[in-house]
């Protein structure tokens, strides 16, 4: 076969794969989004043509379907936002210097430390939650944003360090050496030269941490009741005696995806580069 025709076939096959996968994975999303604009009778018919309604959205924003009080949804959104953003800020502030150190310095047992840090993300959640639940009960911190941030930091700090290390590994050492021969201290070289260069890395890492915390369910379910409850937990409210309130539920799920979607479209170019997995190359 001539190379050009072989290439054509390969390209055609590639599109078949892409389109099949994308269709299969987006049909459920399409169902969620369209259902959120449907009245109950239309939800069950899969009608493609229907009269769109905003009833479900007004229900979750000002209604009380989920057994909540007026305005509770916005309260949960606020909790989710505060907790997610605090976790991102703390993981980046604490994790970035550590990632820099793991990327630039040599010391004994470095590979072990790196792997231990990554492995903290892999622990069973139940092992974190039991002790923290008891401590927070004793300290009267149950059902507070603080409690959630502590647990989210535990499960995201390792991931942050590991991802940021990948970004620092990509920056040639000559840059910090040059900055240091120009009289910068190592710390200033880190802050003034390297950090600005890893801005894409910081945003990509931030997005991943945001995805993990914004959608987290188990910790929030156990640690919060009403005051610090987050949106994913509040979705449980749509499960009712007579079945699930599909309209409001799909509307809430649609709103839940909007923020991460905007974020990731903005930084999507960097999202892939961030995960270069340089961490354990030995």
């Amino acid at each position, binding site marked *: 076969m001539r190379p050009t025709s072989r290439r054509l076939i390969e390209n055609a096959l590639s599109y078949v794969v892409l389109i099949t996968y994308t269709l299969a994975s987006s049909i459920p999303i399409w*169902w969620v989004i369209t259902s959120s604009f449907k009245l109950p009778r239309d939800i069950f018919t899969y009608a493609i043509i229907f009269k769109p309604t905003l009833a479900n959205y007004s229900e979750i924003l000002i209604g009380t379907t989920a057994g909540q009080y007026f305005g509770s949804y916005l309260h949960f959104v606020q909790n989710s936002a505060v907790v997610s953003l605090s976790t991102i800020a703390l993981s980046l502030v*604490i994790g970035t210097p550590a990632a820099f150190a793991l990327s630039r310095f040599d010391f004994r047992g470095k590979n072990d430390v790196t792997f231990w840090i990554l492995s903290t993300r*892999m622990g069973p959640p139940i092992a974190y939650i*039991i002790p923290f639940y008891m401590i927070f009960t004793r300290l009267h911190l149950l059902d507070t944003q603080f409690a959630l941030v502590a647990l989210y930091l535990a499960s995201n700090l390792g991931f942050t360090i590991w991802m940021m290390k990948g970004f620092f590994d990509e920056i040639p050492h000559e840059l910090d050496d040059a900055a240091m021969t120009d009289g910068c201290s190592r710390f200033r070289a880190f802050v003034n030269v390297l950090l600005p260069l890893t801005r894409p890395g910081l945003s990509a890492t931030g997005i991943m941490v945001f995805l993990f915390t914004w959608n987290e369910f188990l910790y929030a379910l156990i640690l919060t009741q009403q005051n610090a409850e987050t949106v994913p937990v509040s979705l449980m409210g749509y499960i009712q005696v007579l079945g699930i309130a599909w309209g409001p539920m799909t509307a809430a799920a649609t709103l839940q995806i909007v923020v991460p979607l905007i974020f990731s479209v903005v930084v999507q170019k960097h999202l892939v580069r961030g*995960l*270069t997995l340089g961490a354990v190359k030995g």
Partner: protein
Amino acid sequence: MRTRSLELSKYLYLLPAIAFLCVLTLYPFAQSIIWSFYQYDPAKSIYKFIGLGNFSDYLLGDRFLGNAVNTFTFAFSTTGASFLIGLIVALVLNRKLRGTPIFRVILLLPLMMAPVAAGLFWKFLYNADIGLIPQLLSYIGIPRTDWTANPSLALFSVVVVDLWEWTPFMILLLLAGMQAIPLEPYESARIDGASSWQLLTRITLPQMKSTIAIAVLIRFMDALRAFDILWMLTQGGPGRVSETISVTAFIYLYLNYHVGYSAAIAVIMIIITTGISMGFVRYLTRK
């Protein structure tokens, strides 16, 4: 003198992170291990040392074997399938054909959906009477059945949703690894007339060995501890056909308040995950 202070300053960058990780991860693990030796029920103020009682109750009880089989069946099938699908899609995306950026945004969407929401609305899609999936399958002659309530399909139905939710993450990880491969080997191989298949098996896959290992490890660990989707879809049922170790641990902690017992299950999970990840590290650092 100067080198020593330089030596010390290196650790200052690491110190906050290590301190936080110790407090936030090592401490709870240690505490879980201690409580796993107690019959601890705060609601009834019971706190009694019972040695290995919790462990023997769980490991020799009627739940453990089924839990372990379900957990590993789930983890192996979702990891294996998401690796194969993820690899194919990542390879295609890496060809940078026209339109790839749009595809990339759309196929990341499931990753952004809250797993708990995914569990809820997939339950609808699986419903025998109104669900999209039984309806579509009925067109090709497969009788309608409620997937999450059917004992032979329940675990499989959870695997499908888990794949749907997390394969995009696998694609991201693998794509990242592919883009980190230098281009020179490909150019010289092309000049030698290598086919795309040869490029894949001789250059891409060997170069991605550590990426693949880490991606599979992360996915496998996440699958071992998976909870949200399982809980929303089946709660371990019908009966116990889809009950995994983490579902049991949750039931004992949240519904029955047996802190010591679920701590023991957590310790068993720590032992399993540590064992597997140590094996992986040994494999990775072997030269």
